[in-house]
């Protein structure tokens, strides 16, 4: 019999994210409820109330104030965390650009939920895809373990002095946020050995006064944005490096940190997808492969920065590609599809878009196997 692994637990995703946050020891947490995110902040409130974490919890009066409070606290030199979903994230919209423009490495968990109307509390990626251009790093997770690990990695990546950008850790609302799975949890000393203490170089300090959030004239504005873009692009290597460090310390990693490939080596047809649906796709691929179909999956873990080179390489051999989007840019097609198609413009593969799982509609294994014949042939709404 194997010795009992005391750090192997069965835990719901919301709690796992809260536990990961506890281990990262933020000093200020802003909390505001919204389904399906609420579980995360409830667990954190409990963690702080029972003195398992020394942090200030601010029960703000809106998501706009949640992110604003994080901005104020992070600018004062403190690690911060908040969480949101859907309308809440939409309400934060203007502040997301300001958080990234001020180069504040705030980490926020998102339990992905669609946007009204019609009002609907269930999962798709409309909320975070709509924040694609806000200058936040975006990581999408497939499992509870990945959500736990990514939360810890997100702090390290965001706070890297080469980057200093905020990060979203996205988990599919209900489909992942409310799912319990086996989780290999980490101990405080393990996380301490991985994530250095947060030390802001530029902060609000009466001893050394600086002005943050200044007015930039046309003469300077482009330079600010170019610097942000350079930070975003240089984060590609930092993400890979942090993923490697995580692997060497904790024996787990997620592809190269940007994308993950499943049975793509000899695949003629490839699905590209994000988030929890990748688990269903893996199973569907196994089933189709038994029938001799050469199908594979490229999972985009990091959507911002967009992993161009990695995606090009991973799709090089595929004849036909389907991008599964859990969101739609009305008047065009799925947001991920549009970007992948632009990336592959000089490649020979045929590429189609499956808009699927909107507003919590299940994407079943059968949906995947039945759509296989349309890969690279036809756009579908599933």
């Amino acid at each position, binding site marked *: 019999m194997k010795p009992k692994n005391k750090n192997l637990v069965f835990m719901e995703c919301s709690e796992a994210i809260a536990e990961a946050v506890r281990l990262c020891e933020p000093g200020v947490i802003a909390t505001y409820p919204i389904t399906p995110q609420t579980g995360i902040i409830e667990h954190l409130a409990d963690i702080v109330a029972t003195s398992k974490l020394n942090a200030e919890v601010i029960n703000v009066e809106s998501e706009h104030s949640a992110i604003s*409070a994080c901005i*104020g606290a992070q600018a004062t030199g403190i690690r911060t965390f908040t969480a949101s979903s859907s309308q809440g994230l939409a309400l934060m919209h203007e502040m997301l650009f300001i958080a990234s423009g001020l180069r504040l490495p705030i980490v926020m968990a998102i339990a992905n939920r669609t946007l009204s109307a019609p009002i609907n509390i269930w999962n798709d990626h409309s909320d975070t895809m709509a924040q694609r251009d806000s200058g936040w790093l975006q990581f999408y997770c497939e499992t509870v373990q990945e959500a736990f690990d990514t939360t810890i990695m997100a702090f390290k990546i965001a706070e890297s002095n080469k980057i200093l950008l905020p990060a979203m850790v996205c988990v599919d609302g209900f489909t992942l946020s409310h799912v319990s799975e086996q989780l290999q949890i980490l101990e405080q000393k393990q996380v301490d050995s991985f994530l250095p203490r947060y030390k802001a170089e530029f902060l609000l300090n009466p001893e050394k006064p600086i*002005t943050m959030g200044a007015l930039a004239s046309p003469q300077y504005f482009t330079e600010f944005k170019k610097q942000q873009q350079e930070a975003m692009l240089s984060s590609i290597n930092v993400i890979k490096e942090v993923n490697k460090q995580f692997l060497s310390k904790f024996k787990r990693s997620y592809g190269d940190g940007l994308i993950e490939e499943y049975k793509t080596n000899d695949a003629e047809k490839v699905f590209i997808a994000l988030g929890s649906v990748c688990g269903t796709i893996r199973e569907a691929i196994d089933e189709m492969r038994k029938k001799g179909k050469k199908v594979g999956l490229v999972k985009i873990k990091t959507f911002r920065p967009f992993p161009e080179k990695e995606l090009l390489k991973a799709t090089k051999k595929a004849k036909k590609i389907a991008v599964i989007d859990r969101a739609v840019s009305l008047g065009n097609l799925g947001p991920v599809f549009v970007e992948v198609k632009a990336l592959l413009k000089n490649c020979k593969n045929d590429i189609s878009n499956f808009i699927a799982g909107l507003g919590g509609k299940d994407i079943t294994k059968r949906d995947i196997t039945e759509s296989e014949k349309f890969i690279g042939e036809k756009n579908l709404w599933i």
Partner: protein
Amino acid sequence: MKENEKERFMPGHGACAGCGAAIAMRAIGRAAGKNSILTIATGCMEVVSTAYPLTAWKLPIIHSAFENAAATASGIAAALKHQKKKTNVIAIAGDGGVFDIGLQALSGALERGHKFLFICYDNEAYANTGVQRSGATPLGAVTTTTPAGKHDSIEFKKNMPFIVASHAGTYVATANIAFIDDFENKIKKALQSGKPSYIQVFTPCTIGWHINNNDTIRLSKLAYQTNIYPLFEIENGIIKLMENTSKIPIENYLNMQGRFKNLGKKEISEIQKDVDKNYELLKSLNGKKIFLN
């Protein structure tokens, strides 16, 4: 200490000649002291004082957006509490960023009891965008969105200090740049109180109100003497009125300003009645506990 060493809002900012709000900023800088962190809402004072790569501030300051100065201040206050640091936190916003778009965030931050002082520089309009009507614009004032004609502002000015005082445990005061020592003393008092505090300071806008650049202080003084902008404090729920015995008619105040030039005798006498009623009410409340906090 030399007099100019107390200054923390420095020359070189881009405010208009005669700007009342800039005078208030100087007073804030002096009264706040070195150990302070400021956050400022989008608006005139933010724009004129922080044009990159320059700054008028010798205090740490952050501007993030328009409606969220109070929320940003709560984050700063929480971070300082976490670090066990005793540093003043001051949020600054114009009346638009308080009476209108910033009201929710302010109410939330007050109710949560953060240790911070919120200062509203009240120039009675959205001055930064070219003088549009706000919830602080007084009855009868012409703005670019309440031009003369049938669209004259007909709404009363929102009673913001009383709204703030309805939040338990707050210190509230009105102030006026014509009485700069009083304003600075109220800032110091608010910061020492350790309570969530609100000071609303009367700051004329020369361009928006159509007044002469050298009339700012004269007009401010008249605002007090005519009772259109009474000065009071609300502490522990008790209101303390700084009584005014000058009894100068409101006409003297209104006539100095282009924004009221369309008012006829009838409207002016109605405004006089409102001012009198409001002042009599405040007098009758003076010294009484009017809020349970």
